[in-house]
């Protein structure tokens, strides 16, 4: 089994941390976000090996401990994975709250949105009506 974190010596660029992340566990946006946070402390090179995303971390300051840097990166990964999950789960609620805030600021927007919603509901009902009409005809035919 490949260890998730290893320290690699290189000839030209000093020592770096190599972190293997399964794509199924951490999405690319999560990896970008975690990397973005550490841009001032590390140079980050990303690569891919089969189903794993490989992250190479090179500390910018020699005094910065590689293991600590890696742990900070892994902490940020969990932080952003959690953030994106919550953001997706709360997307509908956030949208509703924002719409309410915007509509309360401008009542004409609320009326417009209401009209659009009614129009789309009517269209949906018409489409359903046509669909059920077709099915009814099929059942009647021998």
């Amino acid at each position: 089994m490949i260890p998730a974190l290893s320290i690699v010596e290189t000839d030209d660029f000093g020592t770096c941390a190599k972190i293997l992340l399964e794509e199924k566990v951490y999405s690319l946006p999560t990896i970008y976000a975690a990397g973005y946070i550490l841009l001032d402390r590390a140079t980050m090179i990303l690569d891919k090996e089969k189903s794993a995303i490989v992250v190479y971390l090179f500390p910018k300051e020699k005094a910065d401990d590689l293991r600590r840097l890696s742990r900070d990166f892994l902490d940020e990964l969990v932080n952003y994975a959690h953030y994106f999950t919550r953001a997706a789960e709360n997307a509908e609620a956030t949208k509703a709250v924002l719409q309410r805030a915007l509509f309360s600021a401008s009542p004409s927007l609320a009326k417009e949105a209401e009209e659009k919603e009614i129009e789309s509901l009517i269209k949906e009902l018409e489409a359903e009506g046509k669909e059920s009409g077709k099915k009814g005809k099929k059942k009647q035919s021998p």
Partner: protein
Amino acid sequence: MEKKVKRNSPRSFLPFLIQEEKGKKVLRFHKGVYSQSVIQKLADEHTAAFRIQSEEEYWKLILTRSSWEDISYWYNYVLYLHR
């Protein structure tokens, strides 16, 4: 036809991702990790700094300058553009 580039060994990532070809540093960005739109944006912004070529799995950047600071800058800048 795009050329498929093979690694020397799984551990020799730097000779592979950062290589020297005809006296110029060559950086590779995996297509499964770095998006085409970002690489395109980078190319549009810095036409004098490098040339970009497409390989089967990688975007290949051929730099006109070659210090570690430059290499470090490009890798971090591409990551920054993905934010």
